[in-house]
């Protein structure tokens, strides 16, 4: 059987202007530039114009059924790919074939009008998503039940709470029954319980023969939902295959860490008998260096240095800071009971931790080194690194962003008070 999505040599270029210019082109700008250079071709060439390939020569196939993940960093071309496949924008080169009815969900509640009631918006949004009026009527009760907003069905949505709004929007989208569903990041909205319900609905669709193409930054949801995935990097397809393999590749892509020229930094304190020259993260088995880590991953912080060579009682330490400036974790050799009696002229300290307990986000690393109670080097914000979502708890769940930065293994139970004949039970191992 033919693959349901077939993409060959798909590319998309944008011409970007390096001129400082307003967001909207103004007619005057283009006319004046036309007058200034009347004999030069307009738009193209010119030193201040550059062609940027948002997507370059991407080819892949997706077989029918299941959820297929698309991952990649910012600017990797994920959104461009989705926009081309959902026909919002056209490709510059290449060709894509989608076999079946295509539905795309790049946002929940596209076209919702605040002045219209919930009932009216179900019809409007359904039609925008590509449902026929008849289909919407047929599934109307189901949609309303799913959204849990029965009581407010005839209230304009501008009076809805954001939670209600999202639930209604998602309810409509979840009842779209295309052969191919293209979904972007929309799972990150709504409360956790409703998210789960929506994911379940999507899973149902996938098992009943629909194909879902899912883009997400949330590695935990990609890992738990998708069997296969692909990795985009700067507009190119880097890897396609088993989800776990693709995620591993994503995390290990060695990008240059902010501290590459740490040796040149002058904003440091200390005697300078030892100087940090670089810092990197090394993850688990592969031992590859990167500036990204994943929640729950075994990780090694590595700080390289040069020294005068004759140092005694050396205590290096590192501290992890949140962007808010709060210190979250201190890794201190003295605290760990390690004191180094000699260090080489050039080498590295490494500190290994198990199951990285940081929630997804961006973090900063400070480096600090003492010798016999005297500071020899101290660099603040020596590096930044990113922690990607990972399955820390084995449940695919993580605290929603802004609700806690540290992850702690936990076990829950519920027990009766004395005298109550209640059989105690473990509720959820974590």
């Amino acid at each position, binding site marked *: 059987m033919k693959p349901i999505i077939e993409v060959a040599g798909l590319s998309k270029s944008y011409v970007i202007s390096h001129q400082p210019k307003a967001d909207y082109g103004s007619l005057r700008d*283009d006319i004046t530039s036309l007058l200034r250079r009347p004999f030069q071709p307009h738009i193209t060439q010119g030193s201040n114009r550059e062609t940027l390939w948002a997507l370059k020569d991407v080819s892949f196939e997706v077989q029918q059924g299941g959820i297929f993940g698309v991952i990649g960093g910012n600017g990797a071309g994920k959104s461009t790919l989705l926009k081309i496949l*959902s026909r*919002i924008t*056209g490709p510059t080169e*290449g060709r894509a074939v989608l076999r079946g009815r295509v539905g*795309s969900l790049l946002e929940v509640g596209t*076209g919702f*009008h605040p002045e219209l009631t919930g009932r009216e918006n179900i*019809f409007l949004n359904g039609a925008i998503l590509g449902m*026929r009026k008849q289909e919407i009527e047929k599934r109307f009760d189901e949609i309303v039940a799913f959204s849990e907003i029965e009581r407010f069905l005839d209230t304009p949505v501008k009076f809805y709470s954001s939670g209600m709004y999202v639930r209604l929007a998602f309810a409509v989208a979840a009842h779209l029954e295309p052969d191919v569903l293209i979904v972007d990041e929309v799972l990150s909205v709504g409360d956790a319980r409703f998210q789960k319900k929506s994911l379940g609905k999507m899973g149902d669709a996938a098992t009943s023969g629909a194909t879902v193409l899912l883009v997400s930054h949330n590695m935990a949801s990609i890992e738990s939902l998708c069997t296969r995935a692909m990795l985009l990097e700067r507009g190119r397809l880097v890897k396609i295959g088993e989800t776990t393999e693709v995620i591993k590749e994503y995390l290990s892509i060695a990008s240059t860490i902010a501290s590459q020229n740490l040796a040149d930094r002058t904003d440091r304190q200390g005697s300078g008998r030892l100087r940090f020259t670089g810092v990197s993260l090394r993850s688990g088995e592969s031992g590859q260096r990167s500036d990204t880590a994943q929640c729950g991953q075994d990780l090694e912080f590595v700080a390289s240095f040069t020294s005068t060579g004759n140092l005694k009682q050396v205590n290096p330490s590192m501290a992890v800071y949140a962007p808010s400036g709060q210190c979250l974790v201190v890794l201190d050799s003295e605290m760990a009971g390690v004191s180094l009696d000699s260090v080489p002229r050039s080498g590295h300290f490494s500190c290994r931790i198990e199951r990285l307990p940081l929630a997804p986000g961006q973090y900063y690393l400070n480096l600090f080194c003492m010798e016999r109670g005297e500071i020899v080097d101290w660099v603040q914000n020596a590096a930044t690194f990113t922690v990607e979502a990972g399955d820390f708890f084995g449940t695919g769940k993580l605290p929603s962003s802004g609700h806690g930065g540290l992850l702690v293994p936990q076990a829950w139970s519920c027990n009766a008070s004395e005298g109550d004949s209640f059989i105690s039970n473990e509720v959820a191992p974590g």
Partner: protein
Amino acid sequence: MELEETIRPLKNGEKPGESKPLELVIEPRRALKTNFRELWSYRELFYFFAWRDIKVRYKQTAFGAAWAIFQPFVTMVVFTVFFNRVAGIKSGVIPYAVFSYTGLLFWNFFSNALLGCSNSMVSMQSVITKIYFPRVIAPFSATIVNVVDFGFAFLIYAGLLVYYRITPGILGVLLFLPMLFLAFIAATGLGLFFAAVNVRYRDVRFITPFLISTFLFLTPVIYPVSMVPARFRWILYLNPMTGVIQTVRNSTLGEGAIQWGMLSISVASAVCALVVGLIYFRRQERSFADYI
């Protein structure tokens, strides 16, 4: 980009139902091919967009659809007082109130439809960047709400005819809707062009209101065509709205005979506007999401 439905005999060993009948091919577009079957399949969305605009039009207003009647009526009164009584513009056999209201009825439709059409892409920005639909349905559906307003304003027109005891000629009754259609073509033609330009150049936001207020005076709304020397009249008819308004006055109010030759100039220029507008819109259509 096209939507193909292929019906073909089953190949050897292929089970019925195994083949997907619908195949969507996405390619860089080279030709300006219009897929009418696809447009037809989006007719419901066209209807929903129009329905939304109508529903929302007078939401949260105290007087609601009365505005559609109130506005042209007051303008007519002001015009009658100033241009007729004070400035002394004569409208021949027809009472000036009916004369100017006829012009305003169609002019308001044209100008509001043109504005709505020009802004249709920008006002649907959030939808355009998130989902596909044949873009061309939006500017057209944006004018439907103006047809509804026209309907309300028509009530006053009918009232005026009764008040002044004017019996419309049979040609007037027959030509009334075709003239509305001509105004529609002219408005959407220009509107499609401006809607596409508006995606890249928000200058349109300043151009259209300016054009509309200027063209009110280049269109015989306030004054009769007869005030213009005969040899220059054809220039006036290049503006399709001249043809529309003058034909309605001629046929309905019985002010002279219909100038068929002049009307055909207006028709030709309206059709021209629509063709140019459509072609330009279709050429730009695919990059809307990139620039909006």
